[in-house]
């Protein structure tokens, strides 16, 4: 079984986002970047399945600028076998990314495609479901547990009401929740080994996919600031304020 894992390079989750003054976006120059957190869970799960002897090859793929390769390299260091980097110069919408990934799936014929449930930059939560639609494959989103069966997966999904379990026939798309597993750190020897693993580079423009934006970003701004609060000296004062000033209890 072959598993394709899609990863995205985003601003590190610990970085306090700063909005550009001209309203055109957020500051990314000299800002720490890393792999989108749930994409790490997607890689980890694929590696665990391979370690259990149920997968033969893991391919990590990313769509992004030159430096997005670092994200693929990291996936190689934790256990992916080879990488694919689809080069683009601009930020693409999930619809365009899903069309690019469809081309890669057609080329590589994986049995499973894993990725994070949502990217923490644009917070769209679309790419996996869109790829599933393009391929007419089943989708198992927000996965917190995956059981590999013969020709199918049993996937437990994190939903509002609690947990839902579905069974999807392979080939299938799974989008991963942070609770799926605990991603491992790459060891130094594995980081060194990953440097020798191949990363194929493909220009998005060679794939014949329409990547033109459909959504205009008119303005990016800071959210309204909360007005400064006060510190209260005691529990009595707190309760009195909540009762008589805020009138919420």
């Amino acid at each position, binding site marked *: 079984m072959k598993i394709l894992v899609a990863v995205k390079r985003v601003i590190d*989750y610990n970085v*306090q*986002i700063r*909005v550009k003054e001209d309203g055109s976006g957020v500051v990314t120059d000299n800002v720490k970047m890393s792999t989108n957190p749930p994409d790490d869970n997607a890689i980890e799960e694929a590696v665990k399945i391979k370690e259990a002897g149920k997968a033969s090859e893991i391919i990590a793929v990313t769509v992004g600028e030159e430096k997005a390769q670092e994200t693929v390299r990291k996936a190689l260091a934790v256990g992916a076998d080879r990488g694919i980097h689809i080069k683009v110069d601009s930020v693409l*919408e999930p*619809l*365009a990314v899903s069309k690019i990934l469809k081309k890669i799936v057609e080329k590589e014929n994986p049995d499973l495609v894993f990725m994070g449930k949502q990217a*923490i*930059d*644009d*917070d*769209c*939560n*679309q790419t*996996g479901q*869109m*790829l599933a*639609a*393009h391929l007419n*494959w*089943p*989708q*198992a*989103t*927000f996965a917190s547990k995956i059981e590999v069966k013969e020709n199918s997966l049993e996937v437990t999904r*994190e*939903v*509002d009401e*609690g*947990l*839902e*379990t*579905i*069974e*999807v*026939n392979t080939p299938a798309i799974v989008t991963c*929740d942070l*609770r799926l597993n605990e991603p491992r750190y790459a060891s130094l020897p594995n980081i060194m080994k990953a440097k020798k693993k191949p990363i194929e580079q493909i220009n998005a423009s060679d794939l014949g996919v329409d990547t033109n*934006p*459909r*959504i205009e*970003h*008119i*303005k*990016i*701004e*800071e959210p309204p600031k*909360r007005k400064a*609060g*006060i*510190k*209260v000296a005691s*529990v009595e004062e*707190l*309760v009195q*304020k*909540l009762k008589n000033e*805020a009138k*919420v*209890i």
Partner: protein
Amino acid sequence: MSVLLIAEHNNKEVKSFTLNAITAASQIDQDLHVLLIGHNADDVAKSLSEVPLVKKVLHMDNEIYENYIAENYTSAILKHADKYSHIVCSANTFGKNLMPRIAALLDISQVSDIIKVISPDTFLRPIYAGNAFATVKSNDDKKCITIRPTSFEAAETTGGSAEIEKVDAADKTENTKFVNREEIKSDRPELGTARIVISGGRGLQSGENFKLITDVADKLNAAIGASRAAVDAGYITNEHQVGQTGKVVVPDLYIAVGISGAIQHLAGMKESKVIVAINKDGEAPIFSVADYGLEADLFEALPQFLEELNKLNTIQK
């Protein structure tokens, strides 16, 4: 222009987030139709028809819709997509799972998780976990939109009398099977819709100590939340998690106890109307969003808080 809203329900009742989505959808265009896909859900159809903002209910009834499967819903919705300028639903796990599948098949770039309708093609949506707001304009002819439920009031549920039209079922997928659902039952208000939420963090130090939170929650009829740190430490189950990767809550009162206020957590609660922080670390970032901050040891403050609440003659429920 007409808007088609996809209802979320359990064949007995409409889920509350659908009512919030109805309010947003009606701001896009008043000609709002609701598509109800289910099985033996006549009561749901009736209650949707009584929502004054709803102009028509399309009711698709078939046993294949006993459980919600995104693939089956998608083929059902695509049968009706032609007639509408906008297809919308709530941006919770229901709508997040469903809408991109529809959008891709219609070749539409979806606008996710809107918090404001600026015009029928322009919307405000949070990005970077709410650390920036983007004003976006969709240039697709048809729009697929998901709506952040907590940013819109719930629609009125009585007084309307929309027509209910029965429509035929669509194709069923053979590749996805529903196995089971474990719903978390509770007598408390639901976290996503509660008027008061009290949340505990790593400062609680153990699952047993969450009793201090529970006692106050009982007194205030509040829902119980938690930070990711508390969930990861195993103090409480994950359906209580508030934050970027948990639930986004907008209660009238949010009480954060022993929570430092990681960016991840703030993203899930900072739009609350009134925020209280109780933390012994006066430098904790949670204080920067708190209307009322109490720098104190929670193990002393929470019992005192309960005692003070008990002294009050009346407490709003």
